[in-house]
């Protein structure tokens, strides 16, 4: 079976890394002057990206809703602090990540699970190459909050272990061990079952 064959169509239709979009500088200038219409345009541009990131990090729609609102509110109120030395989307993404992790800390949602550290079989097949998006989505949602957040920040958002450690206020070892354990747990969880639609995470309480 060709790797990612089941995911190919999703990649064409939609890009989860849409924080890589550029923002019209004129819009940013208007936003910095407090123009709500300009902010709405920017909000619409990044709504899906911000929502997806918030949902992946927190794992719950109600918390993600709060994260989206609070992060975007800060985006509007702190727009003047944006100096243009990094892409605006990256600045906005950082607001969402900060807010999501703050929610996780505030709500004590994340439980740092101690998992079995037995060495994985080097010859075992890579299960994420064989499953569909819905199955991966479901398995991702079953990870502990901190593990899922580390996994997502590292693999999808491109954070380094140092950056993740800073975000969590923990050591680099914490980031590395959470990533290793999350990967291992994900491998265990990936047992393709009934067909499901994507974006199901958060529709039920976290495991």
């Amino acid at each position: 079976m060709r790797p990612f064959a089941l995911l190919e169509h999703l990649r064409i239709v939609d890009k989860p890394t849409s924080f890589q979009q550029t923002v019209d500088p004129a819009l940013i200038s208007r936003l910095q002057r407090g123009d709500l219409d300009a902010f709405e345009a920017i909000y619409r541009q990044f709504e899906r990206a911000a929502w997806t990131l918030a949902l992946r990090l927190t794992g719950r729609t109600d918390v993600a809703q709060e994260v989206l609102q609070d992060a975007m509110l800060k985006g509007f109120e702190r727009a003047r602090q944006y100096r243009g030395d990094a892409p605006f989307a990256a600045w906005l993404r950082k607001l969402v990540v900060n807010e999501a992790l703050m929610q996780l800390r505030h709500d004590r949602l994340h439980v740092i699970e101690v998992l079995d550290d037995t060495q994985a079989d080097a010859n075992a097949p890579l299960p994420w190459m064989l499953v569909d998006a819905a199955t991966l989505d479901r398995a991702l949602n079953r990870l502990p909050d901190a593990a899922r957040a580390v996994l997502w920040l590292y693999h999808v958002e491109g954070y380094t272990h140092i950056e993740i450690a800073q975000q969590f206020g923990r050591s680099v070892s914490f980031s590395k061990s959470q990533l290793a354990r999350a990967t291992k747990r994900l491998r265990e969880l990936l047992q393709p079952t009934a067909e499901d639609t994507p974006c199901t995470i958060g529709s039920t309480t976290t495991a």
Partner: protein
Amino acid sequence: MHDRLDYHRMNDDTALAEALRALPSCAPERDAWPELAARIRRRHVVRRTAWFTLPAVFAAGIALALAWPHLRLSAPLPAPAGVAARPAMHAATPALPDLAALRVSSQQWQAWVQKLDRDGAPLNGPQLARAVSLQDQIGLVDLQLSAARNPATAADLWQQRITLLQQLGLLHLQPYTVAEQAPTSGTRVIPM
């Protein structure tokens, strides 16, 4: 063997990263913009109102503190509710207070409170209960004023009314101070 493990891990990581990135993005179940826009507008109004009203309140407080001894000298002691019907108690008051000035002052305070009530931030539960209590007390004073025949008693009631209005106004300003303090708690500077 070690090289093989490293190669396998790298391959594993790459495959996992690609699989995660290939997950579709999601959209919120409902449009969050109207709520967000409303929050922004509300906070904007709160900050703008606080910017103008807080210095005014501060100045009014100082003016009140300076004027208070004169008001206490010219006006008799506060009359309880039952005293309004017995004007003879204050018959010997040497100087009558300026009822017209007190009435104008009361009107000004009332207009200020109404503006805060109309344009300001919503009150929380305890603040709302306190506001209702103050409004009840103002209503009681108004009732007493309508029956007051003695100018000294009336002046005292007008003064009570002004004090209650000031308390009501300050109550409406409490959310502004909370809103101004809120950003400093639990937030972090985002270095970019």
